[in-house]
């Protein structure tokens, strides 16, 4: 299967439900870009410092920091993004403080639907289109780890919702610009991360349809994460099943056979879900193998970065 070249896009967003390894994939992709010599910005959105664990001791916070060669990271909080945005418009700090730090106004701003999402996306937009004094792009690649809140695709939907609701004003202009960038397949790609399990697969299928059909976003591919590599062929699988009935529970062999059965059952299950995913849509599916170590380490980011580089460039 040929994959769309994610490396040709400047703005790459990783979306998907919580617990599927989205943060790991976004970080790995960013690392693989940086290793190709691209000046890369990894943007966590309101992540409470999650990717710090990924990159060892380096703190990821609201300041952009270099965490590896060519790789920069930032954690965007709605509060900081709102402040930056407001200051950009209002220019004067005192006015910002008088208006935005007014207790009543800030409690209002906290519940205005979509405002948080919009300012965070706005910051991502800003960096994806940021140029230096000579007019050169500051970032070769901006990689966004989209939030996995209960509201799901609400985050990516917000520019469209806003442009449907209002038709003038700064917020409209901002939403319009972001939407144009998001919809531009030359500049943008959305990668959906999933696990080969019941709920994640169904949600991914729904999510992909909504993003493509309703919002016209370029969903470039689905990444199926944590896929067990089959270790045993069909004949061995049958043998293991039969052998288990012949072995006493307290035998040393039992543990080996049980562990093998676990893998075999999980492999079958995952392959069935992958089939469903293939049958329900024409999106390219990239499988990332299951790694038998805790996912929050640089070692795994490094491995996955190599997987991505290998599969996405052939």
């Amino acid at each position, binding site marked *: 299967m040929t994959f769309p070249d994610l490396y040709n896009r400047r703005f790459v967003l990783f979306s998907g439900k919580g617990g599927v390894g989205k943060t790991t994939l976004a970080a790995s992709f960013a690392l693989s870009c940086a290793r190709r010599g691209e000046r890369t910005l990894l943007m966590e959105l309101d992540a*409470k410092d999650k990717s710090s664990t990924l990159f060892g001791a380096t703190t990821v916070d609201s300041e952009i920091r270099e965490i590896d060669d060519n790789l920069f990271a930032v954690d965007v909080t709605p509060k900081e993004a709102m402040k930056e945005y407001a200051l950009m418009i209002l220019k004067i700090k005192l*006015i910002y403080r008088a208006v935005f*730090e007014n207790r009543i106004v800030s409690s209002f701003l906290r519940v205005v*639907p979509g405002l948080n999402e919009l300012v965070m996306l706005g910051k991502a937009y800003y960096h994806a289109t940021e140029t230096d004094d000579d007019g050169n792009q500051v970032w070769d690649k901006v990689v966004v780890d989209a939030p996995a809140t209960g509201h799901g695709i609400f985050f990516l939907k917000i520019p469209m919702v806003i442009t449907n609701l209002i038709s003038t004003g*700064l917020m409209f202009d901002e939403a319009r610009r972001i939407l144009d960038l998001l919809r531009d397949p030359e500049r943008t790609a959305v990668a959906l991360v999933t696990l080969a399990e*019941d709920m994640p697969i169904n949600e991914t299928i729904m999510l992909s349809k909504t993003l493509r059909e309703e919002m016209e976003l370029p969903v470039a591919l689905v990444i199926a994460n944590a896929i067990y590599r089959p270790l045993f062929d069909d004949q061995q699988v*049958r043998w293991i099943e039969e052998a288990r009935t012949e072995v006493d529970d307290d035998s040393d062999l039992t543990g080996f056979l049980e562990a093998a059965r676990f893998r075999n059952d999980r492999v079958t299950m995952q392959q069935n879900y992958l089939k469903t995913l293939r049958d329900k849509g024409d999106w390219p599916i990239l499988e990332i193998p299951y790694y*038998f170590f805790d996912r929050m380490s640089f070692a795994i980011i490094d491995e996955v970065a190599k997987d991505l580089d290998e599969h996405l460039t052939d």
Partner: protein
Amino acid sequence: MICVGSGGVGKTTTSAVIGLQAALAGMRVLVLTIDPARRLANSLGIDAIGSELQQIPLELFQEVGLEPEGEMWAMMLDMKESFDRIVERDAPDEETQQEILENRFYHYFSTSLAGTQEYAASERLYDLHEEDQFDLIVLDTPPTTHALDFLEAPKRLADAVSSRALQWLYKPGILSGTPGRGILSVGTSYVTRTLSKFTGGELIDELRVFLRTFSTLFDGFEERARSVQKLLCSDETGFVVVTAPDTLTVEEALYFYDQLDSDALNVDAFVVNRVHPKWVDEAAMERAEYTLAGELESLQSRVDAEFVDANELAEGLLENALQFQLRATQDAGSIEKMGDELPSSMPIACVPYFNQDIHSLSGLDTARQELFS
């Protein structure tokens, strides 16, 4: 009993398992879910869980050899519907009600305004509690980054739409006399003008119209939010933190715990799902390195399957067992670390990672036996 935790840790299944245990113990229990969880419906043996109370038929339990002395009910919380219900209940008259329900902001607000879903859910929970039909209500909360989103949503929403916070939008002048934190003392019109610049005047105008109508519900909001808050903080309510054993999820679970604990809420237990069993211990692994192929070879004659190459299979089995041993060790390590950071009296129940997803009552019962063993 409220199950909280990050996404993908098996909260819904855990809620059902707790419900099953309670029903077997003779309680009349309601399992309340927020997601349209088809697999939960399947695992309870029914087609779908709707937004009406539904009893799980006794026969379904009997078919898998269970004899519940109590009753198990299930229901899905439909956010939109719950919110419509609030509008219908609290709108002062028919006309206002229609005006709200038909407002183009409403649909958007009722499903996306930060906290509305949680607010509607906690209201419904409160109603069900007040009706006092059940001995136990198990609530499966939506995945959130902050454990307290669900809990604080009612209060936050009430604060935000309260008489003071928003009225300046539709009652100009109210901001004067409010001590702002800014150095400059500014008037309402200035604030609104600056905000208009920010959001666009149209949005502010739209909001103004909507909020004027919507504000008729606010009194109800504040009062209800207080009652819900009180119930959630009372001794009648307990929290179960559900997690998976990997480092990141455990960290999130501990963060949830800290939040709950600092608000003096009752955390009853931790449930760790998907714990990799330790199939082969270190000693057996060492022994097997030399003996496994031989043992497989001598087993061949008794196994009713085509002959396999014993050396090849032994190699595969060893590699596989080693990989899972690594995971099992990591899981045990992070669970131990979690235990160290929690009060020693906190029960931590581990449920192993099963070969199959749970999609039947008997699967649910297997998980129940593990959880309550």
